[in-house]
């Protein structure tokens, strides 16, 4: 690794020759809280010299001029201008103040102007954006907001599974402070695991992946937790109809060390307790806990420690005279990260992260009767990762911004373990049946990328990502080229194109595709090779009217290979190794176009997104080997998101979504055949796989916030209405047999109109 880093440095060191550059670098923070600000623009007007702060609020800028005026700009904050004499390198830390004019506006945080950046197929959402979207049962949700973006589709009514450009949910890398989160769903997907009060920033990348990202085929959802207020203590919380949450943050050592803790829990179980018979104890709850501490050792060193833990639990205990039956279903994630920022010099910034992530699903039961033995059964599956990653940002000259690094993860997969304890013939039996063998694997990559401003119009981001994956008796590797280019037509309008090759070594086996906890994370093996994708995208984006408006459109074409799916008829508890139950070597194709118009400033903000898309799959062992539409092959997807601020005391949000119905397979006939045992059997003839469509999906949600300043802080009443016109959207269809034996198609919908109210407070 040392040689690799030195090699990179030597190679790019030559770029510095013959130039009298001086470097301006530093951190940009929110003056009120001390939180680092992500994506702040720092530039010299009228030149191509500019930079954007990274995830840790750090920027560096090389300028070959003696005297400059720097502009520091971030929507929602007052811009600053700094005049500098550049006779030497300068450390310049900046504190931005929340704009006083913005207090009357609902604003959206924009990072580097879309038209200027080489990055395409990417969108940034601040927590303000997310909280301006109407809540579902009083809970604002990061992933449900992501689903409103073009190119992203939801998995079904109210669920948090999401599908990006024809990919499946496991093809989305969800990172919380750099740590993969394997199951982002609570309550079978109706809520995500991310507590919005603990989150600072969300970035979704759908294509044109920079080389630093890898391991998934379709998207990267990078979620940054708040760091904690460095200046003073603050709290916020809410009391909703199904959950309450509380967040508390503040300095441990002013301007040096801060913390944030945040917790959330539902109370359906507590509310339902009084209504249950005495012999029954049943309930469900979920909860989350986020915590983060960060300490600034010096200007050059900073340490972050963060943790997330979440749990969903269904339980039922039925006590009867002489015994009891007990059942339990629970699942949850734990993630942890320790991150160390180090500034080697004003041109070289590094971040080292060590990570832990675990997702486990358990289903179990216990029964005991007077005369019988105690019997226990448990089934569980688990994935556990330990990892470390090093990321470097090196800015040798102003035209080149180089990032390079390496990552290593040790995975442990336990895709299915069944345990039985009981008594047989008077003897105690305690058996563990590993339905699938435990798999240990090593997953590593190195990358380098250069964001190169060639001239006033051309800018290119080119990189290489090399990954390898080892497990017992098997070695896979992959060299993945990535390139994005931007051509600036004028200051506000650009054309972009990108190509990205991606490889994914782990897979999710899913029967439902909606993020049920029963979905199994499994490794590539000697029988199951890694999946690959190649995506090209072209697009244009334009900012206008003082960056108040932004329009972008993109077209993409993506191919995927070595996909896996459960074989027809297979299920998660199959009694055999998962590898025997999957259809392998699948191919996928996705293409389409996305349109986004977004208003970033003013009393009314929001966006309209439209996606026109096709996606299909082909497996030798499915659908008679013929190509079939992917379940979430939706031709049209429209989302309208509007936020309006009437006054300091009142604002509202509205979303309307429309989507072509999801594809499904239906029975069309029944007949008798001779089965393998030469006995007659009745079987069902289905349509071709996913040949039919559910009725289309649409609904409107509304949310109103009423704010009031109080002696102790601020309180907000939030009134939300989900599915305001009570559209019965299809969750699934089935054939119901009437009394006369004829069938009729029934549609089951989950959510009618749902009003909710929550009380939000901050101090």
């Amino acid at each position, binding site marked *: 690794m040392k040689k690799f880093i030195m090699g990179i440095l030597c190679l790019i060191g030559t770029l510095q020759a013959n130039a009298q550059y001086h470097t301006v670098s530093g951190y940009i923070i929110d003056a009120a809280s001390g939180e680092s600000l992500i994506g702040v623009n720092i530039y010299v007007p009228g030149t191509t010299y500019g930079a954007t702060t990274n995830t840790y609020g750090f920027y560096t800028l090389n300028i070959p001029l003696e005297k400059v005026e720097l502009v520091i700009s971030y929507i929602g904050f007052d811009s600053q201008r700094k005049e500098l004499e550049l006779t030497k390198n300068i450390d310049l830390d900046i504190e931005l103040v929340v704009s006083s004019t913005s207090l009357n506006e609902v604003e959206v945080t924009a990072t580097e102007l879309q038209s200027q950046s080489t990055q395409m197929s990417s969108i940034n959402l601040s927590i303000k954006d997310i909280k301006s979207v109407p809540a579902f049962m009083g809970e604002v949700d990061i992933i449900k907001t992501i689903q409103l973006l073009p190119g992203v589709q939801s998995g079904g009514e109210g669920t948090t599974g999401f599908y990006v450009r024809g990919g499946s949910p496991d093809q989305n890398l969800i990172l919380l402070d750099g740590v993969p989160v394997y199951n982002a769903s609570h309550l079978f997907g109706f809520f995500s695991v991310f507590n919005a009060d603990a989150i600072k920033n969300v970035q979704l990348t759908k294509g044109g992946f920079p080389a630093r990202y890898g391991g998934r085929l379709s998207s990267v959802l990078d979620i940054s937790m708040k760091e904690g207020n460095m200046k003073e203590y603050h709290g916020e919380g809410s009391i909703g*109809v199904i959950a309450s949450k509380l967040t508390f943050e503040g300095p441990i050592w002013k301007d040096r060390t801060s913390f944030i803790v945040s917790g959330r829990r539902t109370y359906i179980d507590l*509310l*339902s307790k009084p*209504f249950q018979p005495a012999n029954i104890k049943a309930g469900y709850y979920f909860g989350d806990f986020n915590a983060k501490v960060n300490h600034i050792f010096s200007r050059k060193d900073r340490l972050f420690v963060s943790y997330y833990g979440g749990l969903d639990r269904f339980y039922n205990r039925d006590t009867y005279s002489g015994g009891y039956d007990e059942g339990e279903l629970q699942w949850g994630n734990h993630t942890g990260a320790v991150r160390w920022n180090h500034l080697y010099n004003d041109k070289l910034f590094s971040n080292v992260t060590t990570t832990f992530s675990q997702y486990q699903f358990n289903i179990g039961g216990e029964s005991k009767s007077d005369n019988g033995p105690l019997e226990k059964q448990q089934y569980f599956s688990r994935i556990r990762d330990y990892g470390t990653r090093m990321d470097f940002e090196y800015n040798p000259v102003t035209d080149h911004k180089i990032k390079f690094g390496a990552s290593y993860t040790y995975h442990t997969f336990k895709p299915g373990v069944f345990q039985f304890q009981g008594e047989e013939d008077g003897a105690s039996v305690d058996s563990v*049946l590993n339905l699938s063998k435990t798999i240990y694997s090593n997953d590593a990559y190195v990358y380098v990328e250069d964001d190169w401003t060639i001239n006033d119009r051309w800018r290119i981001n080119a990189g290489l990502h090399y990954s390898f994956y080892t497990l017992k008796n098997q070695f896979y590797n992959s060299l993945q080229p990535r390139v994005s280019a931007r051509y600036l037509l004028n200051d506000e309008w650009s054309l972009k194109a990108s190509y990205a090759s991606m490889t994914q070594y782990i897979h999710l086996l899913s*029967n*439902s595709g909606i993020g049920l906890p*029963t979905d199994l994370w499994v490794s590539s093996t000697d029988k199951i090779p890694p999946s690959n994708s190649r995506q090209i995208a072209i697009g244009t984006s334009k900012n206008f009217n003082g960056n108040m408006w932004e329009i972008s459109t993109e077209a993409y074409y993506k191919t995927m290979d070595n996909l896996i799916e*459960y*074989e*027809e*008829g*297979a*299920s*998660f508890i199959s*009694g*055999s190794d998962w590898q*025997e139950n999957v259809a392998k070597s699948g191919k996928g194709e996705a293409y389409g176009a996305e349109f986004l118009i977004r208003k970033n400033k003013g009393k009314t903000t929001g966006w309209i997104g439209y996606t026109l898309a096709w996606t299909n799959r082909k497996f030798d062992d499915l*659908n*008679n080997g013929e190509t079939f539409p992917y379940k979430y092959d939706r031709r049209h997807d429209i989302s309208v998101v509007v936020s309006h601020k009437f006054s300091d005391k009142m604002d509202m949000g509205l979303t309307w979504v429309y989507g072509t119905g999801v594809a499904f*397979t*239906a*029975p*069309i*006939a*029944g*007949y*008798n*055949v*001779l*089965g*393998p*045992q*030469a006995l*007659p059997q009745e*079987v*069902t*003839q289905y*349509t*071709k*796989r996913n040949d*039919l469509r559910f*009725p289309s999906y649409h609904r409107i949600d509304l949310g109103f916030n009423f704010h009031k300043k109080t002696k102790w802080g601020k309180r907000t009443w939030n009134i939300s209405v989900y599915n305001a016109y009570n559209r*019965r959207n299809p*969750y699934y*269809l089935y*054939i*119901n047999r009437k009394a006369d*034996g*004829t*069938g*009729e*198609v*029934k*549609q*089951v*919908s*989950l959510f*009618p109109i*749902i009003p909710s109210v929550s009380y939000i407070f901050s101090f």
Partner: protein
Amino acid sequence: MKKLVLGFLFLSLMACEKTITFNLPVEEPQLVVTAKLFALDSVVAVVSISVPSLSAKKPGYSKDAKVLLFEGETMVSELTVIDAGQIWNGERLYYYTSQYDCKPGLTYTIKASQNGYDNVQGSVVIPTAPPVVKNLTAVERDPTTDPKTDIEFTIEDNGSEDNFYKIELQCGENDFDEYGDGFFTNDLTIEFYDGYSDFIDIVDGEGEYGLRGYLKDRFFNGSSKKIEISAWLPFEKGDCKIVVSSITQETYEYERTVSIAISSDNGPFSEPVSIRSNMSNNKGAITAHYITSVSLP
């Protein structure tokens, strides 16, 4: 308060169900033929009439079809309808049979017709040779502590490409009526597509189990494959036999998908199974089997 909470829970968590008008594709009833051709032995078939999925009718068994067997282009037999004397799935069961000896390596076609329905047909090539089963042993463990029998044998592959074999352990006398004696093996190259039998003790290992095992040509190391089975035999050892069939790929695909469809039985999380067919209307199948049967020693 109680009413309020209950009202809220009802409103927010209830599933809403309604009958909708949905244009499911409607398929007119069709003849469905499933025929099994046994090399140098008999032909047996069932003819069913399919029913649309919204129909109140159950698919029945036809006794009025004309089922013809062709060897190449030449008609060699008309199958005879037999009343099985049984009610299956609420309908009277009829078989069609022929004692015509289908010859290895030749192509046979079944053509079926019945008034009011479109004709259907399908073809299959009979495997050229039966499986060669050798070195069969069956050793009973201690009947008082571990009443299982360890069975071993080898299958010799005839060297041609793309052979598929079906392995069964049959006990009892009636081929059609024997109940599913399963077996258990640690040989992971054997594939099972249907459920295991109660006779199989699965707790003691990480092997494979099922009623019938399928073995593909590509699993052979060289030309010989040793099979090890442990089974809890429901009959005397002498009443049981190992039945190994050479089958065609279409037969394998058909039996595989039917087995999966039956065993998954519309499980709530199971994807629908499309049953492979080599018939002209994409329903049913004509399958070919060349059987070697060896009684346990």
